[in-house]
């Protein structure tokens, strides 16, 4: 079944469930990333040369105050925005200078994205939302050939996330936690190497947020998925293997959490920042 998907997208075998060892070869690298925003005459320099590296199978959290540039960094890494300086490498290849159609393909096949406000398409039901990346990838005929397998896979993913009873519900009929799990399933359907999550728990209550975090952690540990998560909550960041702290557009601090302990380093506690980046 899996051989039907693009081999480029299938480097990670979600269902093989072989825990990938944390290797040193980086899946994703950002080198000296810079980004400026101009509004009228004033220029706001959001990122001033940020270096990040993500090893295969690693779970990295990016934290920082509101306005520290963490979401912008995630957008640059996810090819949603172009850097004003610096490079983005995916599995050893520079990707930020590729043509837009190639970037579209990478976004579609190699990078899964999860957003704070879920961003599901309101016209589609849960299964269809999960299938959306495949809809985008395949033409009509190709889709007709693959739709049976693809649908089965989408259903399997949703069932894995405990949404087996919600398959044909529209987003507005789902709770926040359910929507976010649909969004994660959507990010995973294309079997990406990499999951970029922007405040995935930001809009959720504590219990739902914990559930989502549990899911991400499990994906990272059992499936070996490489994850970059942006958050302002240090407690949440502590679930990651490594925490990168941004301040004023620069990397201020990198902390490795050995054994992925649940409690955060003490110096993060002083900033209970609210607004998302």
């Amino acid at each position, binding site marked *: 079944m899996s051989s039907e998907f693009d081999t480029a997208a299938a480097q990670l075998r979600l269902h093989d469930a072989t825990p990938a060892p944390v290797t040193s070869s980086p899946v994703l690298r950002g080198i000296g990333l810079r980004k400026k925003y101009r509004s009228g005459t004033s220029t706001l320099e959001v990122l001033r040369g940020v270096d990040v590296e993500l090893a295969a199978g690693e779970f990295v959290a990016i934290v920082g105050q509101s306005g520290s540039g963490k979401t912008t960094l995630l*957008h640059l890494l*996810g090819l*949603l*925005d172009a850097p004003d300086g610096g490079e983005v490498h995916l599995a050893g290849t520079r990707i930020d200078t590729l043509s*837009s*159609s190639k970037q*579209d*393909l*990478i*976004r*579609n*096949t190699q990078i899964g*994205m999860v*957003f704070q*406000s879920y*961003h*599901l*398409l*309101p*016209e*589609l039901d849960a299964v*269809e939302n999960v299938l*959306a*990346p495949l*809809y*985008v*990838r*395949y*033409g*009509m005929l*190709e*889709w007709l050939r693959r739709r049976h397998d693809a649908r089965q896979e989408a259903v399997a993913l949703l069932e894995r996330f405990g949404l087996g009873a919600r398959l044909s519900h529209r987003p507005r009929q789902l709770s926040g936690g359910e929507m976010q799990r649909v969004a994660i399933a*959507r990010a995973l359907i294309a079997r990406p190497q990499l999951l970029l999550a922007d405040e995935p728990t930001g809009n959720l209550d504590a219990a739902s947020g914990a559930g989502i975090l549990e899911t991400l952690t499990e994906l990272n540990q059992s499936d070996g998925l490489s994850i970059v998560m942006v958050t302002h909550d240090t407690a949440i960041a502590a679930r990651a293997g490594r925490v990168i702290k941004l301040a004023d557009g620069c990397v201020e601090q990198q902390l490795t959490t050995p054994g992925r302990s649940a409690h955060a380093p003490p110096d993060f506690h002083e900033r209970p920042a609210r607004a998302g980046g």
Partner: protein
Amino acid sequence: MYKLLLCWRYLRTRWIALASVVSVTLGVATMIVVNAVMAGFSHEMQTRIHGILSDIVFESHSLSGFQDPDWHMEEIRRAAGDNIAGMTPTVAVPAMLSFQVRGQWITRQVMFIGIDADTHASVSDFGEYLQHPANRQQLSFDLREGGYDTQLDADAESEPLRPALENAGWPYRRERVEQEKLWRQQQQAAGGPVRPLDQHVDAVLAATEDPAPPSDTTNSTDLDAAAPIDPFRQARPDEGRTMDPATEQFAGIVPGIGLASFRDRSGVDRFLILPGDDVKVTFPTAGTPPKAVSNTFTVVDFYESKMSEYDSNFVFVPLEELQRMRGMIEPETGIGSVNSIQIKLAEGANLDEVRDALRKAFPPELYAVSTWRDKQGPLLSAVDMEMAVLNILLFLIVAVAGFGILAIFFMIVVEKTRDIGILKAIGAGSSGIAGIFLGYGLALGIVGGGVGMALGLTITWNINNIRQAVEWWTGQRVFDPSIYYFFNIPTIINPFTVSWIIAGAVGIAVAASVLPAFRAARLHPVEALRHE
């Protein structure tokens, strides 16, 4: 794939967009209905005109006409070859028709046309327009013993009857003569002055007057011998004998139905004269200067082409009678003159080519050759012009609807900004995003055009029911048959026109979605995702 899916979903969930295509729908429906009705009218009118006029009319400039139609017909055949399917000579002169209604004389200006009963039906649809079934088969200028149609159209049930025609013919004539006799007796019994009836006077006049020199010698010498054959000649002087109107008739005449009747507001025809009545016609003789002569004729049928212009203008009589009365027959040779020859062309012959060939073959100073289209050129081109202008105006309505779509699409793009960002985030390209909205425009155009087509065709097919419903509802006649002379609105649906209308509407819908689609494609994913 996602383009189709999302188009389909948007189509099903965005009612506001469907509202924007309502104007497309209405525009398409209106265009289809208007085109069908205009085409129907135009076609009906052309067949009417063509049915009355033969394909080509060959006529003399002079009212006195030209001599020897047989020789002319041979020449025409020689000039036009196999293109000629039939020919018939006619004489047409302006005249005055007078008849009496309730003691009052009514006089109308008419075109008095002498036709050859045997061949006239072969060049035009003349025969089809008569009211007696037997006359439609073969015209006879003898009064029929009843049997005139009382229904306008054999298949139409709802149309009003013409009860007056039920008794028409000899039964009506006998009844009328009987009544007149009774009336005279009453007058006599009352001791009043016995005024000779007009009918009676006419009979005497006809008996004493003979304006044209007799065409054959037997006529002048031995009238009794000719009498049994020709009813008209029975009316000739029999040394003071007057004809018996209850058993004899004058020369037959077929007036247009518009001269003899009028249609009231409810669509029922009211007849002033009926087959069996006698009328007087005053017309100029041939020669210079023309002299006015009068003669009495008996109405034997009505002519109804449903073109009011013709139905209230044409009066048909036997060609030979008219020739004789006008003095168009050479006494020595017996060769008559006519002033036009009606020509019917063979199937597939080119109208204009034959006309040009005939124009070349005959001196234009003496003869005018024209096709039926030439004769009605201004009318036909006016109808075409009207249709073109209407189409332009209605298409502008659809174009205006396009701007509605444009505005609503911009709104939808704004509303869908976040979704566009999501699609871009999961790898949809700009062309794909533009494709969604172009496809959406196409889908709306197809829906609008399709519903419009269905609506337009339904209205067209039921237009007469709708007309009746509106008439019932408002109590007003929407389609006044006394003006149009048909009871049902004629329609012709031309598939070619319909497909052009649909294509135009769909094209406008797509064109209106180009700009919003372009805008959607250019949205920056980060900006779009930030949009709340």
